[in-house]
């Protein structure tokens, strides 16, 4: 590698780090403003994270309306509990945990609502929440449906890590922080999850 290339690489790397630091600093400032009751700062946080939150919820729940409800509920929880956030972790990590809890609560509620034992499939930890509304049917193609069905058959841990990595493209380090496990555990769990999804999708004829 020539010195010129190396210098260019270092410059790009330095710019990337600075941008990331700037983002984190801005984020911290926004959170602090929210803690003081600044509604506009909360609006900025929502704009910044709504796509992220909505797609995580959608990836876990597999239903647009439920994902929307969970996203709204999660942001309201953030507003109500922002005073408790002490910057011990990234804001996104804290937010993800709120979203995850809301999603799994939603799944529990749906499962409890099903009183007919014939409707409950105990072999699946996750019951698809789709009830095939006309809007959803229009929004979702057949392939998306198949991928959702395959995801629904995976264990919660596998579905969660696939959503974080494949859908949100988070680095291993951030995933380990979110899930509260080591980098090695992230690596092995992600590999197992991908193998499990591959197995599920191989059963389907494309």
């Amino acid at each position, binding site marked *: 590698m020539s010195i010129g290339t190396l210098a260019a690489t270092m410059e790009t790397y330095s710019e990337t780090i600075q941008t990331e630091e700037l983002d984190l600093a801005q984020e911290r400032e926004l959170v602090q403003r929210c803690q003081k009751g600044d509604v506009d700062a909360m609006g900025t946080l929502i704009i910044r994270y709504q796509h992220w939150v909505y797609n995580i919820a959608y990836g876990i729940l597999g239903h647009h309306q439920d994902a929307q409800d969970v996203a709204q509920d999660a942001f309201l929880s953030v507003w109500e509990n922002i005073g408790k956030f002490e910057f011990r972790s990234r804001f996104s990590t804290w937010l993800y945990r709120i979203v995850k809890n809301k999603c799994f609560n939603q799944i529990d509620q749906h499962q409890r609502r099903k009183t007919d034992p014939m409707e409950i499939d105990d072999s699946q930890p996750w019951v698809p929440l789709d009830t095939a509304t006309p809007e959803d049917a229009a929004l979702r193609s057949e392939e998306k449906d198949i991928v959702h069905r395959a995801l629904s058959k995976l264990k919660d841990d596998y579905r969660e890590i696939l959503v974080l990595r*494949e859908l949100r493209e988070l680095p291993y380090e951030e995933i380990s922080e979110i899930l509260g496990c080591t980098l090695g555990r992230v690596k092995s769990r992600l590999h197992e999850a991908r193998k499990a999804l591959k197995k599920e999708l191989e059963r389907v004829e494309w």
Partner: protein
Amino acid sequence: MLAAFQQNSNRIKGFVHPAPPIKDMVMAKIHEELQSDVSAYLDNELAPDRQARVEAHLDSCNECSDMLTAFQENRARIKGLEHPAPLSIQTAVMAQIREQAAKTTVEEPSRTLRFPDLGRWIPDVGRWFLRPVTAGATGFLTLVLILGALYFYPTAPQYEETLDFYFGIHTEQLTDTPFDESLSSIPQDDALESDGDANLFLDLYLENVGN
């Protein structure tokens, strides 16, 4: 003797066992180990030397290269699930937050007039005391304070009257005359008596041991 040697040689040869497929076993182990890194290879999360080893293995192993292709395809499929967040999320949440903030602003003056931020402060203190370490430390400090008080306070002059009163009540139980003037002479008599006992003891000691 020669016959015996030949016999023993044949016996030793009988121990020879066809070697297990060690090479295959080792290669299978290496394959398994490298395959477990295919996922991290896809994510570019391996150290450079490990990345190079997995890459070399992928060139020669169809099973692992097929796995990598499948992982790449599935990644694209999951990515295809991404959907823009509806604008109604922001609108609905902000409407509720503004409503809550408006209510808080109306209630704010009466609440914070005399005790600013008290409502926010009290739950924090409560939570702080509920933590096991804090609760334990508080208990320990309380115990130390009580023991310290018991150790130091009886000698403090301001509590002597209290102690006198306490012993007076006990004396009352014994004598029914707690505040009798005659009781004040008891310590002096006791002191004299104890001096006499000491002298008597010293005399007896000198008589028996001193000689």
